[in-house]
């Protein structure tokens, strides 16, 4: 089936399934809603077909998908699959945090594995999703946004915190921390030091 041929209902179903897979592939919760959206953004860059299913917009925190937000908060096909909390973070008020699967969500995850795990592209997709979770979950919100903003500048147009995050002192401090922890290469570190707004 071509992605273009999907009905809105089929798209909604797929988005919820992708959400279940990305959240379920690692045992720990997705730290914040920002992580979830940025991780899906990376995922759609890895698997470009996904951009036909999950649309992204330039938003106040960079790349953001209303489709994902709706699927997480009001799932139609997998009701009660997701759980999360609301918390005030230093950078973002009333942030969705600790996103995980409920027992019903975990059962749905197992069903999806059972149904599709014979297919090599599906196994590859799961490994990719896991890789993304393992690479991006450990970042704190500021680190995550700095890396996304500096890499995908065209997506920062409406970002409300882009300027403050890219202010020299803050940017250099964050860049140093990322480099010291071995998260970014020296070349990326240099780029962050020399970045201009």
């Amino acid at each position, binding site marked *: 089936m071509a992605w273009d041929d999907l009905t809105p209902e089929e798209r909604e179903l797929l988005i919820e399934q992708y959400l279940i897979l990305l959240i379920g592939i690692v045992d720990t919760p997705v730290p914040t809603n920002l992580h979830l959206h940025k991780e899906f953004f*990376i995922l759609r*860059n*890895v*698997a*470009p077909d996904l951009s036909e299913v999950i649309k992204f917009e330039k938003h106040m925190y960079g790349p953001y998908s209303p489709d994902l937000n709706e699927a997480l908060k009001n799932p139609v096909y997998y009701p009660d699959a997701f759980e999360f909390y609301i918390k005030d973070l230093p950078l973002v008020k009333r942030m969705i945090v600790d996103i995980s699967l409920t027992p019903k969500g975990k059962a749905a995850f197992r069903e999806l594995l059972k149904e599709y795990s014979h297919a*090599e*592209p599906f*196994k*590859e*997709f799961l*490994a*990719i999703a*896991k*890789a*993304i979770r*393992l*690479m991006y979950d450990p970042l704190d919100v500021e680190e995550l946004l700095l*890396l*996304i903003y*500096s*890499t995908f500048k065209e997506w920062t147009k409406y970002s409300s915190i882009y300027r403050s995050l890219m202010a020299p002192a803050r940017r250099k401090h964050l860049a140093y921390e990322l480099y010291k*922890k*071995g*998260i*970014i*290469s*020296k*070349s*990326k570190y*240099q*780029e962050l030091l020399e970045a201009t707004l």
Partner: protein
Amino acid sequence: MTKTEVISDSTFYICFLDDIDYLEGLKKIINSGKFKFVIGPVVENEIGKSPNYHFIKPDLSKVREKPLPFNYGEIVRPFLGISEIKKGEHEVIGIAIVYHLKGKDFILILDEDGPRRIIEKKLSGIKSKMTGTVGFIGRCHYQYHIYTKEEAIDILERIRNSKFRVQSHIINRILDEIERCGP
């Protein structure tokens, strides 16, 4: 016999193709029957720029594994610099992470310091699979028996005298390993 998959950046191929201009040395590895070479599109494009690439392409295509059509490099693009991305280092790391998570056995040949540091500090599961071009040449003698001792030493000395960027003490260390492993 199961072939070990080799995931390498372009530096390894360019070393033989251009830096030391020793195509036979690379062909011996390619035609040894011991490896499959995993090459993504960015690295292929980089190697393809070598005027000597067409000499090895037919042999390489027989033992080449194309990864599935995902943009693996995008997994780690935000962690690397633009110059590293242009060379396809992100693609190599992305493929290696996914292969590692799938439990595949492979050798990762990486020469650039930046990507190597990320693997050493943040991707410890892959660290043991990682080597550099000169380290791999050493192993092609004492582990895979593709090169004789004299051939391996000759290639390492060619590298020492070429524009290939590697510190002399690393070449010396590999030469010591080759000597210790006997004929």
